[in-house]
């Protein structure tokens, strides 16, 4: 029905008005970036700009050229000059099924964008993981094996990249792909803005990746001044890239919220939404509200570096602690921007493999919302040793401990679903168990960092590193793996190899625990984090940790091999291999380009496992 209308429209409009920007695509985007880059450098030379200003101009023009070249603005530009948008071209931008080139274009299909995000995130994950291997190589023995400055740069790059992975992989990848289908929509509310949010990333990521060529940076991803004001151009590259990622995630957050609140199929009430969609909705709300604060902080920091302002320059009346407040006002909610999608994916997987309704669904929803609200009241627990106002310590300690209540309820929801279920130990479910263990450790050790007295002793030690990795790897990456295995048949139309999946799970989980559990001990003993060298007595434990860490990398290699091989040659998957009840499993694998021939009507929640009758409206298209 839709297709015929589009064809009719295409006949009417096709001969008229080609868009006035030349045929867009990745080659033109690269050309555009190079032209923009050259223009920026030319302008900087004309203005006799300092190196920092030159880098900023070159990047801004390069980014604009890239986005123009890829065709991100062509429809809006056509609209802005008052011309009608060519419907045929708009339809073409949606991409055609089975065409691989659409993954390298400005394609507006949410499923293509989801895959773009997911693959980009995994490439970034492997790159940042390699950086971690370098760090473990340096730390395997006391003393300096490579180079201190290089270690700092690699450490910072690892952090910057992994933060990006954690921020975008689940919501950008799995979320983009699945949310419209799960709520019974044909696409996101704003497909072009959706594609734009993806295409803002490649250049930003490239900028972070080449920062060692610009002198690197040693501030870590937190970029505290005054160090970040004095550091090399590589620091500036990171700051600019992170602001770009921020703008992209605000855009994407608006898109998610409008999609979820306005595009649901008939009968899909808020309390019938899959829990994964709920988790991403709260995530999007957090990203929308918090991200512009860090964008403001990083912009002020950039201005301090390149335009001579004094916001964070204590010598000229500025305030260094102010930066930390603004930074953590975003970056603590950001921990939940990273973790909630993972929790959502876990809760989505649990009922399917426990064959039971999701336990305490309404409470889980309420918990996600209260985590979202409370995450804005805890940021200063990152700053107990910063010298911030004393009166602030106790209230922040209390709110931080309070936030473990809703988090605990989410946990309980997973455990209650498993309890007395008929558990199928498939690979996605294994990751759920891995998550439960890892996130539990992460949560419990968080208490020591929320309590002011212990936090003061443990600040900036390996204990923090271990705690952070247990929460973010435990929450986000375990959720990402669970979700990737779970939805792999839907996205690719093929099954992954179960045995390799199990190998990946056991190898990764054991190696992960062997890597980070000793770090708790090291931290308590006083080993500093972020430093290339350490006292000789920690040598043996660090060697053990390094060997374990290399095993993580090897297990991820198994994952990559499994994914790539199964995508090409895996056995064809049925449309619903898990017998799941959410909408995405009721359509073909991979889903047709319009998702649904007919928009389904929803009559019940998607977790009615064990009930005598499937909850579908007409028995086939909905649940």
């Amino acid at each position, binding site marked *: 029905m839709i297709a015929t209308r589009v064809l009719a429209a295409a006949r009417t409009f096709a001969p008229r008005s080609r868009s006035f920007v030349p045929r867009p695509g990745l080659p033109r985007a690269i050309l555009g970036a190079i032209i923009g880059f050259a223009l920026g450098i030319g302008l900087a030379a004309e203005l006799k700009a300092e190196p920092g200003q030159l880098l900023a101009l070159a990047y801004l023009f390069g980014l604009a050229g890239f986005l123009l070249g890829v065709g991100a603005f062509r429809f809006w530009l056509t609209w802005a000059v008052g011309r009608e948008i060519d419907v045929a071209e708009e339809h073409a931008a949606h991409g055609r099924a089975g065409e691989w080139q659409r993954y390298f274009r400005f394609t507006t299909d949410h499923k293509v964008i989801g895959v773009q995000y997911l693959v980009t995130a995994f490439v970034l994950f492997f790159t940042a993981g390699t950086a971690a291997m370098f760090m473990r190589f340096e730390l395997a023995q006391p003393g300096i094996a490579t180079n201190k400055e290089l270690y700092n740069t690699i450490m910072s790059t690892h952090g910057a990249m992994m933060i990006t992975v954690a921020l975008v992989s689940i919501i950008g990848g799995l979320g983009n792909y699945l949310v419209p289908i799960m709520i019974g929509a044909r696409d996101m509310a704003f497909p072009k803005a959706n594609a734009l949010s993806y295409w803002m990333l490649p250049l930003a990521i490239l900028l972070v990746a080449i920062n060692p060529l610009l002198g690197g940076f040693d501030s870590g991803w937190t970029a505290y001044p005054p160090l970040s004001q004095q550091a090399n151009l590589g620091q500036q590259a990171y700051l600019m890239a992170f602001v770009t990622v921020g703008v992209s995630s605000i855009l994407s957050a608006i898109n998610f919220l409008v999609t979820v609140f306005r595009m649901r199929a008939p009968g899909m009430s808020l309390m019938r939404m899959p829990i994964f969609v709920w988790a991403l909705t709260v995530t999007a709300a957090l990203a929308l509200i918090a991200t512009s*604060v860090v964008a403001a902080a990083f912009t002020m920091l950039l201005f301090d570096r390149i335009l001579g302002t004094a916001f964070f320059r204590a010598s000229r009346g500025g305030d260094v602690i102010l930066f930390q407040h603004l930074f953590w006002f975003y970056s603590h909610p950001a921990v939940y921007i990273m973790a909630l999608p993972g929790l959502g994916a876990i809760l989505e997987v649990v009922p399917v493999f426990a064959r039971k309704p999701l336990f305490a669904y309404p409470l889980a929803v309420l918990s996600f919302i209260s985590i979202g609200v409370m995450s804005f009241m805890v940021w200063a627990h990152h700053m107990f040793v910063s010298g911030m106002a004393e009166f602030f310590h106790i209230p922040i300690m209390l709110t931080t401990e309070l936030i473990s209540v809703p988090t605990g309820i989410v946990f309980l929801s997973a455990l209650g679903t498993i309890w007395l279920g008929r558990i199928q130990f498939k690979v996605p479910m294994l990751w759920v168990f891995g998550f439960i263990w890892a996130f539990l450790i992460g949560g419990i050790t968080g208490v020591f960092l929320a309590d002011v007295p212990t936090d003061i002793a443990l600040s900036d030690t390996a204990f923090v590193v271990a705690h952070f990795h247990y929460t973010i790897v435990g929450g986000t990456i375990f959720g990402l793996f669970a979700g990737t295995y779970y939805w792999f048949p839907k996205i690719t139309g093929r099954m992954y190899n179960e045995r390799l999946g199990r190998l990946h799970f056991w190898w990764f989980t054991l190696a992960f625990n062997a890597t980070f559990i000793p770090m708790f001990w090291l931290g308590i003993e006083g080993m500093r984090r972020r430093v290339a060298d350490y006292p000789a007595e920690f040598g043996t434990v660090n060697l053990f940790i390094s060997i374990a860490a290399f095993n993580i990398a090897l297990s991820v290699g198994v994952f990559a091999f499994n994914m790539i091989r199964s995508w090409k040659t895996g056995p064809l998957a049925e449309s619903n291999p898990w017998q799941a009840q959410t909408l995405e499993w009721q359509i073909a694998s991979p889903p047709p380009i319009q998702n649904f021939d007919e928009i389904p009507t929803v009559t019940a929640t998607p977790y009615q496992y064990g009930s005598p009758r499937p909850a579908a409206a007409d028995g086939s298209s909905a649940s």
Partner: protein
Amino acid sequence: MTTHVAIGAHDEDAAAAASNMLLAVKLAILSEVMLFGALFAAYFVIRGESPGWPPPGHLERPELVLPGLNTLLLVTSSVTMQLAVRAARAGNRSRILRWLGLTLLLGGIFIVIQAYEFSTNGFGLDAGTFGSTFYILTGFHGAHVLAGAILIAIVANRTRLGLFSAEHHTSLEGTSYYWHFVDVVWIFLFSSLYVL
């Protein structure tokens, strides 16, 4: 801004797309509120820690006359903008154009006055914390006024081309939200940067 011509557009889709667009504008404004909130927070913290404001030295605060006039201009432009929206709801094209034109004119004068003020202030972005906070707030705001003016120009052009009707004028409505927001930010900005 153009999802109303999305694949398979018809009346229902267009109405849904319009309400989607307006929700998106509101959400975008929420994010902008946080942006300016952060900048204002920085301003008040830094100002509060300073031994005086402007910090002791040879800096003078800008005069109130021109920014006062600017406040008047921007508030008036919010009124004319709303009149344009009313005209759009009534489907009266020439009246939309008249009010949009007036709004654009007021916004334009605002920008010119602001630029004049910047050039005669006698202190720059690098003039310590005073210059930093003053210019980042007024500068970010000025950029928003400029963006709003460009949007108004685009919308006016589309009105001229006859692309609006009483039922169908989402971009005008969305632009008006944005314009009012920019106006409100200015009122906060005027009271805290210039008056307080």
